[in-house]
């Protein structure tokens, strides 16, 4: 019994870090200040302008945006390239134009502008984490010297707050699991070894092929020593590695996989019969897509494009939502050791 609980505990611990790292924010929310950098920060403190929303504008196809960069210069900005903290002038197709600081809530279709309502000064210590907003995606962790500040032009939008130290461990935990996973690589080799060694021991027919297999493994190992040497190196292992890779593995690999073309051909011929309504649908779709793949006619291509972008996309999405949830469910069951069944109920 203790064995089972040990396994359960270890399994839970295995996942708990990454789960927390995802769910817990980078900085403690109620100790985080979010706003534009107003003045060049000193080593000890950082002045942040708190922005209040003044305008919220829907972006149309003919909406233009102009970003004011340092030294008062103006430059065109695209809806998906504006960054929080930019000072932009948005002009709607109707001709109304508004100026303000882009806020993080804006999306490519909808810009929220604001102006600095108040300013707050944050003291910088080791426990403080500064994250600069990107145009899209999460904030990046930056040092004080990297920040560009301005009160009259585009500046950086930062979130400054007391850090939750979880993310600092990410790389180490990641490395640990990378190595742990890689340790399993011997399994493939070992199981193959079991298969073929027993073939040879019992002199089963084709045991000669197993001998050949071991010879190939040996050759592969020796050739592997030449991996990663400079192109022009005179090492014989490098030459051997090239021979194995280009003269043996290349034709072997591509030919073995190309056999499937023939199976597919005969399978299509033999089993693609209009037996039922479903079979007909499948066959028609397959033929349409195949014809669309060929360089025959433009409208054939567009027909297959329609199937792929409307029907297939929709159906695959629906299936993927289901698979995502079942993946989460099985993950949960394994993670919390709720799983039952032959493997998990074996007495240990």
């Amino acid at each position, binding site marked *: 019994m203790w064995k089972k609980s040990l396994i359960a505990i270890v399994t839970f611990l295995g996942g708990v870090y990454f789960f927390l790292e995802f769910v817990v924010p980078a900085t403690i929310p109620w100790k985080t200040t979010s706003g534009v950098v107003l003045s060049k920060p000193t080593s000890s403190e950082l002045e942040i302008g708190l922005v209040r929303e003044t305008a919220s504008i829907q972006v149309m196809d003919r909406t233009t945006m102009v970003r004011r960069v340092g030294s008062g210069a103006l430059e065109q900005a695209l809806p998906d390239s504006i960054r929080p903290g930019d000072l932009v002038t948005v002009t709607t197709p109707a001709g109304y134009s508004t100026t303000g600081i882009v806020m993080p809530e804006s999306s490519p279709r909808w810009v929220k502008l604001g102006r600095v309502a108040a300013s707050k000064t944050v003291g910088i210590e080791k426990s403080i984490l500064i994250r600069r907003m*990107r*145009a*899209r*995606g*999460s904030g*990046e962790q930056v040092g004080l010297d990297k920040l560009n500040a301005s009160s009259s032009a585009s500046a950086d939008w930062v979130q400054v707050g007391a850090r939750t130290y979880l993310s600092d461990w*990410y*790389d180490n935990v*990641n490395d640990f*699991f*990378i190595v742990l*996973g*890689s340790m399993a690589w011997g399994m493939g080799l070992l199981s193959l070894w079991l298969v073929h060694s027993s073939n040879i021991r019992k002199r089963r027919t084709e045991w000669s092929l197993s001998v050949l297999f071991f010879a190939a493994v040996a050759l592969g190992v020796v050739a592997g020593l030449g*991996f*990663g*040497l*400079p*192109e022009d*190196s005179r090492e014989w292992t490098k030459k051997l590695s*090239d021979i194995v*890779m*280009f003269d043996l*593995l*290349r*034709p*072997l*690999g*591509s030919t073995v*996989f*190309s056999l499937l*073309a*023939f199976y597919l*051909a*005969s399978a*299509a*011929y*033999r089993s*693609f*019969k*209009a*037996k039922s309504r479903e079979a007909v649908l499948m*066959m028609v779709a397959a*033929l349409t897509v*195949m*014809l669309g*793949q*060929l*360089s*025959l*006619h*433009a409208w054939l*291509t567009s027909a297959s*494009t329609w199937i*792929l*972008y409307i029907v*297939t*996309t929709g159906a*695959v*999405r629906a299936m*993927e939502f289901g698979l995502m949830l079942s993946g989460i469910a099985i993950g949960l069951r394994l993670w919390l050791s709720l799983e039952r069944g032959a493997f998990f109920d074996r007495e240990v």
Partner: protein
Amino acid sequence: MLDFLIKLQKVDRRWIYLAVAVACIVPFIVPMRLSVHPSRETRGVYEAVEKCPRDKVVLLDSGWDAGSLGENMGQGQVIVDHLFRRRIPFIVVDIGGSAQGPQFMNAVIKDIHDRKYPDRRYGTDWVNLGYNPIWGWQVITLVAKDIHKAFPKDYQGTKVDDLPLMRRTHNIDDISLIYTVNYSPCEDYISFVHGVYGTPIAFACAGIQSTTEYRFIPPRQLVGMLVSARGSAEYEVLMYPNNPEMRVSKGTELIVPMTYGHLVIIFGVLIGNIGYFAERWKRRRV
């Protein structure tokens, strides 16, 4: 007559094999050209590469090997050609693909370099960082955070800090586009790179895999996708609209024979069904 039709669905499979083989061999011996119609997903990749700035790099994840050479090689050729033409520096990596990936991609690059752009230099115009056997998010997140940590050396053992291109490339902010050439590209790029940092991603994948990747194109999780040999053929049509003699990629070489192979299979399906219906008709008659 009816019996003959019924026999049509009992042809020995070796005859089908022979028909496919012949249909595929003939176009190689008798060269012919067909028009290619670029599709939406291919245009997407082309426009994305056209938009790339010169001061950032393109990350080219090439994990293909002999098994999928017919499809992926062309996709690698066209993108390298395009990047060399626009002189956008690019970094070749192989994350969890195949140990042969870097060498194959290197041979492709060398060939295009010698044939078309002899003045491009290794280390400034492109870098090949070699192979990392770990598939999936574990290394991808590492590359996004600090590429020097993920790949301390390039594919032939040089320290990356000695390469001028790598000195100005540190993390995801220096990468303007990620292009993945693989039999089945890693979807973790979409969740852990596009989802986290918003970097545009383009896939170049096998036809079978493409069917599930189409769903990422409308929400722009993928800017575009090259599908099989067709994708690279279409891409070259976009790159060289007026001078076909410049189209030299594997895709352009294979697209015409592919057409014939497909037609034979379609024909096989049709005669199979003719036989099937003939049999059903006969059964109904007696």
